[in-house]
């Protein structure tokens, strides 16, 4: 995938998320940062160093967990950690790291015999064993069960709290929303948006929906004429109001003025998924653009 215009700055100690549809250029971007690819143009600076020219120094300070990389089937957990720690000048104590990642009980287990979650935790441990200032985590929780995903997320927050800057690549919106301090949405090789998760959601001007039931008669125009409202549907006693901006407070205010009590009031929670669709025109896990209309 070609990357055309991807510019961003990651601040020290933050978790910076990169999201985008499949084939948007996420992996190309982080591979360039990790020095696995030489960009045709543009510049990359990692801790003030060039990933290609200052390869040796960058590799000492950068930990990488790659998508689709693995380890020999027969290597044991403790052996892999000891081996990788011997590559670095100032590694962390790999035994402590093994403990932190809950792998001590598996220290003599071969890689092949580990569960998906354990493999992932080993991969994270190996990305951190060199005591990096920056860690790149590509598709951190793909293939994990929900509990293992949550455990991995808390682990990443712990790592961030030790001062490691984290570049997180994911196609899971919940993961990006939960972990990232800021997020870049990459689409078609460009940065489509860059903001905090809350900022992205607010900026995406996604259509909102408010649902409720009313027991009393109520004229449709009371709500339909509100400036934020774009549509009102009534099915029996069920109302569905769609709109933008401060939709909920407008609707609540109008109902109060009409002295109508709304029951079962529900606001469709907007999340990063909606923002993602708004910025890229695609659902997060589908490579095809959604049909308009």
């Amino acid at each position, binding site marked *: 995938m070609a990357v055309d215009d991807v510019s961003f700055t990651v601040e020290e100690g933050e978790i910076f998320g990169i999201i985008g549809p499949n084939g948007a250029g996420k992996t190309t971007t982080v591979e360039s940062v990790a020095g*696995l690819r030489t960009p045709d143009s543009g510049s990359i600076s990692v801790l003030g160093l060039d990933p290609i020219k200052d390869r040796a120094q960058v590799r000492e300070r950068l930990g990488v967990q*790659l998508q689709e990389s693995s380890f020999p089937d*027969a*290597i044991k957990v403790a052996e892999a950690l000891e081996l*990788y720690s011997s590559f*670095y000048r100032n590694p962390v104590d790999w035994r402590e790291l093994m403990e932190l990642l809950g792998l001590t009980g598996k220290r003599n287990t071969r890689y092949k015999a580990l569960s998906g979650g354990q493999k992932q935790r080993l991969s994270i441990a190996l990305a951190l064993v060199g005591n990096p200032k920056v860690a790149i985590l590509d598709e951190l929780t793909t293939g994990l069960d929900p509990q293992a995903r949550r455990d991995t997320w808390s682990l990443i927050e712990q790592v961030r709290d030790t001062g490691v800057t984290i570049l997180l690549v994911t196609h899971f919106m919940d993961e990006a929303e939960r972990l990232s301090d800021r997020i870049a949405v990459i689409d078609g090789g460009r940065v489509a948006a860059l903001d905090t998760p809350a900022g992205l959601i607010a900026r995406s001007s996604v259509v909102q929906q408010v649902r409720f039931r009313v027991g009393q008669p109520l004229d449709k125009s009371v709500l339909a004429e509100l400036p934020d409202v774009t549509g009102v549907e009534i099915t029996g006693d069920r109302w569905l109001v769609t709109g933008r901006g401060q939709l909920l407070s407008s609707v609540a205010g109008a109902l109060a003025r009409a002295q109508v009590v709304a029951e079962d009031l529900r606001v469709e929670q907007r999340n990063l998924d909606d923002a993602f669709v708004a910025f890229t025109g695609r659902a997060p896990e589908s490579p095809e653009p959604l049909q308009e209309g």
Partner: protein
Amino acid sequence: MSALTNMVKIETRLFLRDSATVIFGVLFPPALLLGLGAIPALREASPETGGLRPIDIWAPTALVFGMVMIAVQHVPGVVATYRERGILRRLSTTPAHPRGVLFAQMIVAFASVIGSAALMIFVAWAVLDIAPPAQPLEFVVAFIVGYAALLGIGMISAAVVRTSSAANQIGTLLFVALMFFGGAFLPRVLMPDVLREIGELIPPGLQALTTAWSAEAGEITATAGGQPFWLQIAVTAGIAVIASGIAAKLFRWE
């Protein structure tokens, strides 16, 4: 401990855990020699061969079996797997270069063929009364140069294949072809001259190994127009250098 020492240590353990390779590459050649040595007819000295027994003449073929197996099947298979599964790629994001793991792999594979050869020569001497190599220096040179040529060919295969299963298929083909010229299927004594002459120059250079082991056996397997020992070594060394060069040129890390 340095990264390379550690890699050699780990690769040694991984090799020993690969029981198929340990059995077929290291233990099978001595066992094969013992098995054939158990056949009385192969232990009978014949006046036509100057008092040598068939097993004396055939022993170097068993030796070559382990060398070929490790160099063209095992090493390329591991290297292709390491590339296919992103192990080389993952290493290239660390301060250690992935060439370290290839180097460690070759050290371990070489140590294993030396171990296999030593075991075989010992078993041949202790059980079958086959004299150890008569010219140790020439034998060691022929062994190292022959193994290097095999490994060069194996590494070309490792360089060009895309998947580990392709590496295994090519490895099997190479194994069968090299072992044919090595006399595993038809004793070289019975081969037509042209095949024997080709066999003299094909890695690992069985004729040179046979001559260095036993000059008498070498005279029997050599062809009338056979090349002198050091010329055979030079040709094999040339193959080793050229093959390694091609492999290095074609090698893909990803």
